[in-house]
């Protein structure tokens, strides 16, 4: 009775299931409750999909005291966030989306838990739609280290690899807790000094990996001699349930920024199969595309970087990005909704004689002074 009278209501309401994860994650971090209406209400198959339900369940596992209400048809969801608890979490991710879908959200939440997170996620590790586990491992983790999230047990380990559609992969993600974020000034990415990569293959001939490496090197050698692509062939119990192969490439700059690209074979029984040579070549071109876009953060981690900037101290943070992806643009709007933070967006056009790819965007913001309220003080 008193609660309703004296606490101002601060909820937000959205339509549709797009950007589902962003909304729930930001709601959890900001403590504002959120209501999502009209989830596929006009669809033949209305309501939340299994993978979204699985995501909500994962969120429920890592939080303590959150209230989730879903109506009968699943077209409306109400989420009142609790406190992030963390600890040891095991989750069987739905096979419709890969583990990357779940992991992206966990990466945003993990530093703000009460106890260090140790999440074991099972499901599809690599599929063409979402950023794969390998990509997140090689780009998101070093990015988070720049924000001061570091320490013992900050790790993402691929225990088993499972390709779409069968899955059967397993990933262990551990993250220490953090009290505050450090403001960053990532304005100069520096020059790329080396390119590394992983060519993985499961339940196919181990030769596939070598063929991918060969073709990818062919493209990248025009720019840099320091290229090393590991082949990762998993066998037996570690190889999941479906055959497939793929490549993840990461370019590291002198200033410790990481740009990445990846490509994986089409899932078994869904469309035409790809030749490993083509895949290697195309993936290398994707990396070049990413280099062309440039910035200090690669395109799939833009939102993570922006979130960590927002949650920083009340200091100015700057980060140079490539062109903003639609997902990031929506994320920026959501950040404004949840944290009232607007970014100063300055487009840097490339000069005439410079050969450094396309235009970049310099994002500047003042952090909200967020501190991890879940961590226990002794």
């Amino acid at each position, binding site marked *: 009775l008193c609660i309703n009278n*004296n606490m101002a209501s601060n909820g937000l309401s959205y*339509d549709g299931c797009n950007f589902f994860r962003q909304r729930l994650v930001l709601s959890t971090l900001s403590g504002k409750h959120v209501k999502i209406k009209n989830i596929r209400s006009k669809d033949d198959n209305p309501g939340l999909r299994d993978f979204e339900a699985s995501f909500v369940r994962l969120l429920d596992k890592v939080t303590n005291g959150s209230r989730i209400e879903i109506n009968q048809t699943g077209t409306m969801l109400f989420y009142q966030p609790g406190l992030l608890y963390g600890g040891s979490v095991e989750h069987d991710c739905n096979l419709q989306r890969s583990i990357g879908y779940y992991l992206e959200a966990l990466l945003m939440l993990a530093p703000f838990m009460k106890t260090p997170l140790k999440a074991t996620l099972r499901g599809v590790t690599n599929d063409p739609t979402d950023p794969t586990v390998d990509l997140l491992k090689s780009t998101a983790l070093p990015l988070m280290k720049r924000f001061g999230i570091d320490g013992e047990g900050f790790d993402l380990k691929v225990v088993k690899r499972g390709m779409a559609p069968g899955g059967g992969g397993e990933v262990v993600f551990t993250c220490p807790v953090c009290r505050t974020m450090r403001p960053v000034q990532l304005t100069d990415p520096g020059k790329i000094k080396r390119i590394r990569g992983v060519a993985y293959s499961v339940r196919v001939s181990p030769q596939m990996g070598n063929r991918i490496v060969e073709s990818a090197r062919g493209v990248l050698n025009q720019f840099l001699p320091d290229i090393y692509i590991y082949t990762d062939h998993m066998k037996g119990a570690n190889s999941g349930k479906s055959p497939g192969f793929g490549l993840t490439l990461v370019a590291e700059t002198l200033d410790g920024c990481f740009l990445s690209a990846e490509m994986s074979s089409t899932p078994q029984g869904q469309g035409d199969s790809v030749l490993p040579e083509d895949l290697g070549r195309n993936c290398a071109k994707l990396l070049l595309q990413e280099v062309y876009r440039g910035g200090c953060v690669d395109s799939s981690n833009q939102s993570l970087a922006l979130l960590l900037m927002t949650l920083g101290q009340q200091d100015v943070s700057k980060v140079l990005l490539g062109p903003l992806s639609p997902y990031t643009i929506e994320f920026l709007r959501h950040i404004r909704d949840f944290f*009232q933070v607007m970014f100063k967006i300055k487009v840097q056009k490339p000069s005439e004689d410079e050969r450094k790819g396309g235009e970049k965007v310099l994002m500047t913001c003042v952090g909200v002074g967020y501190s991890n309220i879940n961590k226990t*003080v002794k």
Partner: protein
Amino acid sequence: MDGKVKKQKKHQQKHSGPKAEKKKLRKHDKPTEEDDRRRNPKAFAVQSAVRMAKTFHRAQDIKTRKHHIPLVDRMPLEPPPVVIVVVGPPKVGKSTLIRCLIKNFTRQKLGDICGPVTIVSGKKRRLTFVECNNDINTMIDLAKVADLVLMLIDASFGFEMETFEFLNICQVHGFPRVMGVLTHLDSFKNNKTLRKTKKNLKHRFWTEVYQGAKLFYLSGMLYGEYQTQEVKNLGRFISVMKFRPLVWQTSHPYVLVDRLEDLTNPEKVRMDPRCDRTVSLYGYLRGAHLKNKSQLHIPGVGDFQVSDVNFLPDPCPLPDAQKKRALNEKERLLYAPMAGVGGLVYDKDAVYIDLPASHSRQQQEEVRPTTELVQSVIDTHTTLDAKMAASKVSLFTGSATLDPSDLNEQNREPGLQEEHIWDPNSQRERRKVVFPGEEENVKVRAESETMAEGAPPSKIQKLEEVKSCGQSVAELPAFADSNDELEKSEEEDEGEDESEEENEVGRAEDSGHCSEEEEEESADEEVNTDGESEEDEEQGALRWKEDLQQKAAEAFLRQQEAAPNLSKVVYGSVVEAVDSDEEDEELGGLFRVSRPHKSKRLQTNSVDCSRFPPDSSLNWNLEEILDSIRDCFVTGKWEEGQDAATLLKQDDELYGDFEDMETGEVHKSQTAGQQEEEEENGESDEGEEIQVRMEDEEVQKNKRLEKKRRLKERFNAEYDDGDATYFDDLKEEMQKQAELNRAEFEEMDDETRVQYEGFRPGMYVRVEILSLPCEFVANFDPHYPIILGGLGSSEGNIGYLQLRLKKHRWYDRILKTRDPLIFSLGWRRFQTIPLYHIEDHNGRHRLLKYTPQHMHCGASIWGPITPQGSGFLALQSVAGTKAHFRIAATGVVLDLDKSVTIVKKLKLIGYPYKIFKNTSFIKGMFNTVLEVAKFEGASIRTVSGIRGQIKKALSTPPGSYRATFEDRLLMSDIVFLRSWYPVTIPQLYNPVTSLLRSVGQKDNWSGMRTVGQLKHDLGIRNKPNTDSLYKPIARAKRRFNPLHIPKELQKALPFKSKPKFQQPKGKMPRDLRRPCVIREPQEKKVAALLHALGTVHHYKKKKTTTVQHAKHKEFLQQKEKQEEAKLKRQKEAKKKLYRLMGQMDKKKLKSSLKGAPKDD
């Protein structure tokens, strides 16, 4: 004085003679420490390594103890006024002191001190004085916002409870600066007692604050004011004082409200006087950045969301930076709207003039009515705007009256200017708001447009409209809620903009397909007619296949360049999915055909994926495309400043030329030499290229400067970083961050800047809040401060809190679990029900009935989420004043969820109903089999201490079970099971709404009562448990069963131990009974005689035996004597004998000793 200053004799130094020699000698070999060491090395030798280590450690300790954790300095360039809270018990002279200080700084007199008074005290400092009354609510609120506390103490009385309470409140919520001020010192007649009292008070004050805390003495009053010189000194102290940043204050935005306007529609108030109010509150923003739409807490009222924030021109601005020492009369400003001072006050869209203030020249001595503003607020029947429009004011006697419109014209914001642009398409004039920086390019555009069309006639518009127009300026990124503003502007333009935008969008979309020329043409499309562009298209149609790839790439690039302002894309045009406006077909007027809107569904329900789909326009097989990213790799070209070759060259420049000191040879670097040569050459033919040389000189100068800078940097690096500690590095990092913070948004105008970083501290803001309770306005009292405390993210939520709590050592009672308590935590004051607990050695949190007397304990409450580490204090009541100390407990927040379960002890009791050897059947402890099943294996105990275990449930009676014990139970034993029962924390959160109470009742807030108070108030007495009552003890006599010894055992026992069976004398059978003898008289006589004789005989016998006994005794005594004598004799004889024997032995020994040497 008269120009001829008397010259004094100059000192003449000796150049010869013994004194000069001595001096020379001393100068030559100055005895340094080095010398001392060389001369007497032993004195400087290491005597003890341990001692040396100790001294070193001590030195380091002292050094590091001075360090504070470096914080980023977030103080804005123009800081908000310093909040000075004047506290003290009533009648100690608070108002007088404030009045004196204000008079000291501004030369103005203020009557009643209502609300905060802001003044300009110096070139860089403003002060806000707030008087704190004796209410503990006010004390708590003001302690949270104070920068400096002037603590007034009545020296004639000594310390009062309020002083200590306030100090304790400060201690809990971060200690602001505290300065004590002793007043009433003139009441001491005796100088010695005065000195003594001062000293005593000072030392007591020091123990509370810190050793050496400043205590100021105001010796006496003159005409109702403190002495001018003393007030001046106090003012100087205040104006140079430095303040430490407090954690809570720097991490939260807050406003000490100094003005309040009720914006509610008066009609609505008339209809329903108790309706919720819309109120705008004004004040300087302090602490951190405030964001629009963020959450606020108003202590004493509740939580609210900011509906709108604006910044207003500073009512009390700092003087412009000029080189002069003192402020002039104009700059000594005073601003206190609640006290009715301030003259002109500005609002977002109105200007208020305080009429009495403008007449004050004529009636200076008149004390202004204090409640005027309040009265005006309460008695509002028409809106202020309407009033303003109706009223006419003449500023000077005899001058023309001023219209409100004129006033508006004069007082609009300085940065905003109007420009009229003729729009050819809509055939009307559009007014564009221009900010000074943009003026030029807009003018250019305006000119180009006026070239196309004839210049329109200019008109003068009202400012209100300009404002609404100003928000639609394209360069402004939209505000948090301003997506509708864009729409507004579009509506205004009657679809004109839309068509333009469509043009642009269309262009951007098909630019990939059309040819280059067409693209160029399309830029001028507005000028060209349609026919022309068609012609072009025909021309281009033939060549379109050439260089398709390259064109596509270029087109893409151009598209990228032509992209509209990115921040507008992100924040400006939020696509809103509105379902209501769908075109639905109706079937028979009843049913609607629902067709999913394809595009809309894509937006709202498409796949949620963070991947950025690759751009297909770039073909990475082409060489030039590949070339476009060459420089991203280390193998590519490097920038000027980073290229290894140029860096080497620069180093050469720096270190190339040097002079060899020994040989005097001068080495010069190649480049430097060349330059000099060039310069010489230049001088030779100087007549030709003066211009070029000028430029050259410029370049040279720059180069020199650069060189100097680099050298300095290197020097600094060498000498500073040599012993730079971690602390120094950290400090430098913070310094850099602070500079960046200041520099980043410096060049922006405030309007834009506010959107990015929020409203920065130091701004004078107007905060609009909807739906405040009507009592807030109706019962407004300026003597009670209104504070807007900003809340961080998720601090607006409510949940469980774990606290560490300690009863205050000065509080005279211990606190009881579940008694409601009033907490002051964060900004809030609220009542809640705490549970106290303590952690056992095994980590269990056991509920306590009462807080420990002198120990910390845990407390769990249901309350607002507040960051860990925030301090709190607790009170039992805030109503009225009490004689004793009111702060019941203090502590700190540890944790914010229910991660520990508090348990209380529960004993379940059962009784044995069947006892076998060590096994018993127990009943009465549980009710069902299921309950028993849950406790299988649990350990149980009897009162007598026999331990056991629950084994298995029995079917009947329900809830009984079999248990085994380490010994056999008795039926009289009671069995119990010790268990722990989790306790739920009661969910009561009751904010103290003291500000809503009527005037004069504000310090009487009382919330939920304790059970004890309730019983006391209602006169209820509990019936005590009958078991607890004292009764006379009636003990039943204990009867023991006879001892039973088995027969076999009996047989084996010796007779002595055998049980003796004294048969109870039952009735003898008749045949065994002796018959009764009845004597004849004769026989009777005989028997009587015999009996008499017998008695005589017995008597005689007895007599003789006694005599005999006596004789025998005597005999024995005699015998004993003889014996004794005999023994004595014998002893004597023995003694003699032994003595003889001893003597003989001695002799023998002696002779043997004597004889021995002889033998040798």
